[in-house]
């Protein structure tokens, strides 16, 4: 695996989602940078670390599900049954 510092520290361009949030990676949202200037400032994050944080949250939630049940049912599938 190659690691190029410059690539990692250059996030994809931001796209505005709402008046308070932007996005750079699919399903990952950031506070509009102009709103993080007075009391809490934004940090530079390598891209891999942003994605790692998001994935570990997903892993954590899957792990949490396993504490409560062996299987999670899909609502999309049940709705499909209803429509049949």
């Amino acid at each position, binding site marked *: 695996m190659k690691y190029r510092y410059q690539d990692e520290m250059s996030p994809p361009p931001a796209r505005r989602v709402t008046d308070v*949030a932007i996005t750079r990676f699919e399903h990952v949202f950031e506070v509009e940078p102009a709103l993080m200037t007075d009391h*809490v400032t934004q940090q530079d994050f390598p891209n891999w670390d942003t994605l790692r944080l998001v994935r570990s949250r997903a892993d954590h939630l899957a792990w949490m599900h396993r504490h*409560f049940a062996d299987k999670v049912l899909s609502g999309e599938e049940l709705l499909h049954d*209803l429509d049949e």
Partner: protein
Amino acid sequence: MTVLLGDPVLAELRQILGPEHVLTGRADRLNRTRVPAPFPVHRWAERMPDLVVLPASTEEVAEVLRLADSLRIPVVPRDGGTGLTDGAVPLRGGIVVDVKRINQIKEIDLDNRTCTVGTGINALKLNEVLGRHGLIYPDDPASYPCSLVGGRIGTSGWSLIGSRYGHTRDLVLSFDHVLPGGRVIHVGDGIGRKITKSSSGYQLKHLFMGHQGTLGIASEATLKLFPKPEAEFSPFWAFEDYDSAYRAVGALARAGVATFAGAVLFDEWKVDYLRRDDEAYIPQPSSVKALVCAALYGYEDEVRAGGRRLLRIARSLGARYLGDEISEGDWAARHDRYATPLHGRTRSGQVVPMSWHCEDASINYTNLPAVRLAWHEIADRLRRESDVFDDWGMFAYTNGATGADYLTEIDIGIWEQRLDDAAWEAWVRAKRDLAAVTLAHGGSISACHGSCRAGEVDLVPEELGGGYDVMLAIKRAIDPNNIMNPGKYLLDQAYAEKS
């Protein structure tokens, strides 16, 4: 009281517990001065215990209490330290009895479906062991990974899936309880350890639950177990207005589906907050004004059948299913609410570090809309007064399977570093006002955390009426020297005549 190093008290405690289990260091004590409820950090020093002890058994707890009682030293029990009504916060110094070392699983009884544990254990850890036997202990607060069995008993806690399995009071069958003078009694239904129903004598189990450490310390508990569910279903739905969502949550709760474990209503303020600061909801269209979710647990065939029924009901009431990703992710996140984004906004929209605080009450279904408006008016007043406070909206969670009443919470972000005396006063006043609204609507001041914090505690005598006088008499009878968690629930009044 102030214990000086070299005091005979210290020497005796070291003798009882071993020197390494008596902590006097500043960091050890500072870490046990507060809980996650907002706190005037500039007044941290007022809540420092003099020392901390870590007993390993019921006998050691009993010896500590015997000594403390004979010397009239205040004692504060502490378990996970996640309580949101300041129960584990010392108000008069003294000894914090941290029970985390009493965390063994003593027995798993597969035939009677119970287990017996030290009260320092956590349900998540316990369930990792029970899972190997196909069992679960379904006490599931949003603090699931970090609250412990003793604290669940001390607060008589509320569980997210309590509409199916019951809450802490239903799930804890019996426990060893150390009285303030050091005597150990066993409380449950009757005297049995594993009895789920008895009519023998007074029902003491309830008395020794939810007392916030003012009546002694639970050290070992026997818990009711269930088969670990095969399947879970947790649909989330969006609505275009609060009234439709309110009607839907009521209909879902009243549907009588056996696997129904709970439903939650999110109001417009909650949706605004989530759309501002929560990844899952930022992309939701502005037409989404309120949300509802439900959770079902059981065997797969039962959950499928119940799930279809609830989907049909929700659809007939104007719900739009939010999809599997949000439904699965957000439900799992309910079990660990620490992941809530801990930032809020000033009125100009700038991000500031905030801690989460939740004021809770039990409110009947029919009063939810009115309480919601009155509570937001109070939160709005706080917000207008200062940037220290941010209104993060309300949830209403079913308390039971019939939908009579709901754990109703308003979440307020608080910028603790900026809490000065004036802001703290405003906060305490707001808490009192929230509690007053609850009582005016026939509710109870707390469904889950307890009500002994500044502000709401002033209204507890009004809520309980003559029952509060009984509470004073019981406190005086059981703890004649007022050593257990003094200053909580205004219980010092119990000793006023005596002194």
